[in-house]
């Protein structure tokens, strides 16, 4: 029994149980009054800025030593705002000519630049505007002589807030803030990056309801699923306690052997690969124990710019990834955008149903200029490496034939230009549209391999939009309908000697490992953090055991029956894998 259950966006995995604490960071608003002693006011602001610099330097060092350079950079950037000559020039001018108090002059200057960055209408710059506000608050707080922004909890608690700034997260006592839950906020904010790096479970986008959760009442935060349970009964708490403990133990043991292969108890080696979306992540993938890249998303090359990247630029970036991976396989997905993630220079039309619209391979087939450039760049950069090209959102045989024609055309173009390229490159498709799964036997004749994308396959199979909170829980890849389609695809592919990988979130769920193993999946590909956990889960089963678990799971009626069954299976085999990522 749970008194109330709230669903938000999973931001940082892990389970935490504790009383709710409403954190209301007091935003300091500067008063505005005239001053006589201008010099005294200047000294006051100088001292406050010096103190803010000391705080930020200490935070950067603390972050770099304890967490990582990426997190430290957040506060280094804050530090640069404090030294900005234009901002300071504006503030000093205000102080001296308008003779206003230090707080007001500082706030006005910071607001001016925050507003300017926000007005540009770019998400990255809007996030920097939030950082400017955070720094502005730090200085205002020092000027107002507040020792800390607001009192944190006195005992270990689940922190609930409207929204959190990076400074809020680090200001809260690490031992007492056991989880973060916010009403607003997105999964890509700096605050989320920090909570992930700190290993603190977090849920964002819980909506206004979370603010009415009574203070002091016990709650369970399931960060992997984005679920907040308010006032659960003892049995539920006991169940989650056990899960949290099992997760801790498993994680500790799994990370120790992450670089070893995943081999089943009967000696079958299963390939575990990484999903990545940048050059930086390629290096991190190797460090996490990945045996290759099962999915390289290429959208990062195309977004946040005014023109598509040309062939040379793309070739250089792909080559950086290939050089890092050596002879390990790298599966590269061609540009996968659509109406839901528009790219300014593509002049895409507004669509009523972008998920059913011109996206994935449909878009690149409609824009041959983009497609040719990307394919030429991929073939060139893959020379001497293990390149595999995969087309997203394939629904029909015609899609494959048309797309392959462009690959042939790209080869001819490179030959004509006398350029070297990957001649042995395999060409495959993402199986994420139900029609492709149903005709997998036919498609297997025209491709070299399949890669199943379970996020889209679940959303299309269950007709539930992943981005619509009202129905998104239905788009559950554990649903027997999705699992049966996966089974069909693998069977059809193996009958024709084709290999099958899976790169959706399901591959990164340790709970799903025995089912996928039992269905005969050749390759698991997932986010870097899941690799040690999934490898560990695979090592616990024999292929025979996994086969019977898969048969049983496919015969169940609902997604929750499948989850319950797999949870019981995992606990019988020993320490229980959590479905956390």
């Amino acid at each position, binding site marked *: 029994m749970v008194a109330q259950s709230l669903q938000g966006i999973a931001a940082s995995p892990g389970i935490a149980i504790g009383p709710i604490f409403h954190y209301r960071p007091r935003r300091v608003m500067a008063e505005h009054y005239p001053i006589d002693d201008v010099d005294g006011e200047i000294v006051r602001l100088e001292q406050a800025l010096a103190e803010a610099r000391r705080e930020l330097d200490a935070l950067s060092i603390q972050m770099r030593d304890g967490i990582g350079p990426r997190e430290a950079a957040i506060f280094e*950037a804050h530090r640069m*705002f404090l030294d900005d000559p234009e*901002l300071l020039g504006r503030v000093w001018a205000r102080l001296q000519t308008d003779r206003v108090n230090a707080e007001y002059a500082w706030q006005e200057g910071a607001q001016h630049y925050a507003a300017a960055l926000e007005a540009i209408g770019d998400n990255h710059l809007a996030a920097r505007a939030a950082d400017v506000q955070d720094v502005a608050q730090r200085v205002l707080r020092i000027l107002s002589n507040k020792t800390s922004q607001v009192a944190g909890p006195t005992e270990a608690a689940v922190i609930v807030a409207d929204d959190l700034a990076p400074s809020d997260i680090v200001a809260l006592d690490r031992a007492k803030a056991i989880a973060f839950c916010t009403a607003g906020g997105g999964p890509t904010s700096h605050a989320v990056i920090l909570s992930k790096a700190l290993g603190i479970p977090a849920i964002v986008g819980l909506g206004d309801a979370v603010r009415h959760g009574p203070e002091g009442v016990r709650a369970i935060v399931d960060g992997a699923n984005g679920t907040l349970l308010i006032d659960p009964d003892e049995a539920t708490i006991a169940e989650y306690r056990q899960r949290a403990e099992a997760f801790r133990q498993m994680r500790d043991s799994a990370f120790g052997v992450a670089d070893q292969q995943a081999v089943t108890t009967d000696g079958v080696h299963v390939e575990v690969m990484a999903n990545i979306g940048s050059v930086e992540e390629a290096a991190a993938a190797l460090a996490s124990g990945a045996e290759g890249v099962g999915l390289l998303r290429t959208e990062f090359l195309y977004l946040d710019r*005014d023109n598509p990247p040309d062939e040379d630029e793309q070739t250089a970036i792909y080559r950086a990834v290939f050089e890092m991976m050596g002879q390990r396989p790298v599966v590269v997905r061609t540009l996968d955008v659509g109406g839901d993630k528009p790219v300014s220079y593509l002049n895409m039309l507004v669509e009523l149903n972008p998920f059913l619209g011109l996206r994935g391979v449909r878009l690149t087939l409609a824009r041959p200029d983009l497609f040719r450039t990307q394919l030429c760049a991929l073939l060139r950069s893959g020379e001497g490496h293990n390149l595999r090209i995969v087309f997203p959102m394939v629904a029909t045989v015609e899609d494959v034939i048309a797309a392959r024609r462009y690959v042939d055309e790209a080869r001819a173009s490179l030959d004509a230009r006398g350029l070297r390229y990957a001649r042995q490159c395999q060409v495959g498709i993402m199986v994420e549209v139900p029609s492709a799964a149903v005709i997998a036997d036919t498609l297997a004749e025209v491709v070299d391999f399949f890669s199943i994308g379970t996020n889209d396959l679940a959303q299309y199979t269950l007709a539930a939009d992943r981005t619509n909170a009202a129905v998104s829980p239905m788009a559950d890849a554990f649903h027997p309908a999705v699992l049966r389609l996966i089974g069909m695809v693998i069977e059809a592919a193996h009958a024709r000697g084709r290999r099958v990988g899976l790169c959706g979130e399901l591959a990164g769920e340790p709970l799903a490992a025995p089912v996928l193993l039992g269905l005969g999946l050749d390759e698991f590909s997932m986010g870097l953090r899941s690799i040690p956990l999934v490898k560990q889960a695979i090592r616990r089963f024999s292929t025979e055991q996994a086969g019977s678990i898969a048969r049983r799971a496919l015969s169940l009626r609902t997604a929750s029956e499948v989850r319950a069954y797999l949870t019981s299976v995992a606990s019988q085999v020993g320490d229980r894998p959590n479905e956390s990522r």
Partner: protein
Amino acid sequence: MTATREIVVRHTVGLHARPAAQFVKTATRFASSITISNLSKGTLPANAKSILSVLAAAVQGNEQIRLSAEGADEDAAIAALCELIDGNFGEPE
């Protein structure tokens, strides 16, 4: 005298985040006054030693900028900034 150069920023994210910070740190090493204007967006010359002004120039990948420096070390300043941009901020191109 003024040293001026026009250059295309090839970095995929443009002058955001880490590249912007590196750019400002490099500019700050020089005594000359240095300005940056985003020619592709037609922005006015802004202080290249100000991180907020550089961010507000909203320079994205493949956009053209104009750098001008005036002072004792103006040539060295322009050379150092162009080297940073040409070297793609130390990342593989």
